[in-house]
């Protein structure tokens, strides 16, 4: 029988048990990679270690029972960020400034180590962070956010709690987040205005690829699209959802662009602008419509809430995919012509 969702995990009796070994190894690995990503002498090495760091983080998410995050981290944190960094390495091969290892460097480092150990000590000897905030039976008996969320999931229109939180309980956050993507893209577009930056000097920024890579891309891209669609659909009842799906689709677009198979997406095409704007716009229209004709801002009608959520997610997936692709691989032809 599954224990109710709110129960606290039992504390270990001995200070360090054998079950902790894989976690200790991951911890050590992560610290070494973080160090390398920051201080490797060659910047290219630092970038590679950063990408590897992202993959280990995805492993830790899986270990901490966070499959939604593992999916998102692997695609976004390791995948898309990696492409961005590689592009940057190619554009700016030299180190722009040198770091000096002065006394403040070692002092600050010592501070970081000491502070972390002090934090650990606090955790071990003080209950407040580990168990407080979880218990309902406190002096005022008021249920916390977590308990209310768990209780409300059946009425939300989806079964997967994370999707319920993202698309229903805290839908306003998600709407604003779609705007974050859009604002970042708007900012990027400023860099390509006429004669402004040297980004528009070269005709092709992305290298020609091998025939093998092109063949592989032709197989991989459709697979990614199908997987993305599946993740989107699955998101209502299992880990998945708009962001994971969108980032996989963006990865597909990036692979196609890297192998020269993706034609320029032209900003002058109203279809492109529509797909970029659609996610946030539709969401905002839903919010306004529910406010004017319904029960309030972002109050989904109970009969349609599942359908509404999947529609919002589908349109958002499209917007997220296109916006992320443009953010990673968008060039002058895509963004300004």
């Amino acid at each position, binding site marked *: 029988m599954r224990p109710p969702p709110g129960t606290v995990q039992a504390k270990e009796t001995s200070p360090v048990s054998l079950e902790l070994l894989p976690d200790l190894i991951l911890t050590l690995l992560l610290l070494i990679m973080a160090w390398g990503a920051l201080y490797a002498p060659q910047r290219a090495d630092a970038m590679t270690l950063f990408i590897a760091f992202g993959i280990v983080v995805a492993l830790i998410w899986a270990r901490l029972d966070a499959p939604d995050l593992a999916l998102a981290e692997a695609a976004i944190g390791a995948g898309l960020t990696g492409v961005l960094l590689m592009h940057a390495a190619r554009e700016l091969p030299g180190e722009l400034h040198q770091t000096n290892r002065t006394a403040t460097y070692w002092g*600050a480092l010592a501070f970081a180590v000491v502070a972390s150990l002090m934090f650990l000590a606090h955790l071990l000897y003080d209950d407040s962070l580990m168990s407080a905030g979880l218990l309902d039976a406190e002096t005022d008996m008021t249920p916390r956010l977590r308990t209310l969320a768990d209780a409300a999931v059946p009425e939300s229109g989806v079964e997967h709690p994370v999707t319920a939180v993202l698309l229903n309980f805290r839908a306003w956050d998600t709407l604003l987040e779609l705007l974050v993507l859009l604002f970042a893209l708007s900012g990027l577009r400023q860099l390509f205005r006429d004669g402004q930056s040297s980004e528009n000097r070269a005709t092709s920024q992305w290298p020609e690829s091998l025939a093998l890579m092109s063949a592989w891309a032709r197989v991989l891209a459709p697979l990614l699209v199908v997987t993305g669609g599946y993740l989107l659909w699955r998101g209502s009842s299992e880990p998945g959802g708009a962001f994971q799906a969108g980032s996989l689709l963006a990865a597909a677009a990036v692979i196609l662009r890297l192998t020269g198979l993706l034609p320029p997406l032209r900003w002058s095409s109203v279809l492109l602008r529509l797909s970029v704007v659609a996610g946030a716009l539709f969401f905002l229209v839903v919010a306004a419509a529910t406010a004017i004709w319904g029960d309030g801002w972002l109050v989904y009608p109970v009969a349609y809430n599942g359908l509404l959520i999947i529609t919002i997610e589908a349109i958002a997936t499209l917007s997220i995919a296109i916006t992320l692709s443009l953010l990673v691989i968008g060039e002058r032809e895509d963004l300004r012509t």
Partner: protein
Amino acid sequence: MTAIELYLTLGVAVFLLSLHGLMTLHDPIRRLIAVNLMGAGTFLVMVSLAKRTEVPDPVLHALVVTGLVVAISATAFALRLIIAANKDDATTSEDSAQR
């Protein structure tokens, strides 16, 4: 010590380490990597806090998904901005690297 406490401390340690990097590194791309590492540390803290219960806290997971998307958007913009800001200066260092 439980796994949760270990990961919480790891999150704080990565945060502090990358903060140290942000303050001492001068190359803008490295500083951006440092900021991303700070984000990873923060998310690690959040996901560990989520795992205090047997079934993880969906609210914190949702917050981290949001945070991840914000991080990639801002990083993409920042990297392109750094490239655009330094592109012309970089040609001189490229020449000196080739010698």
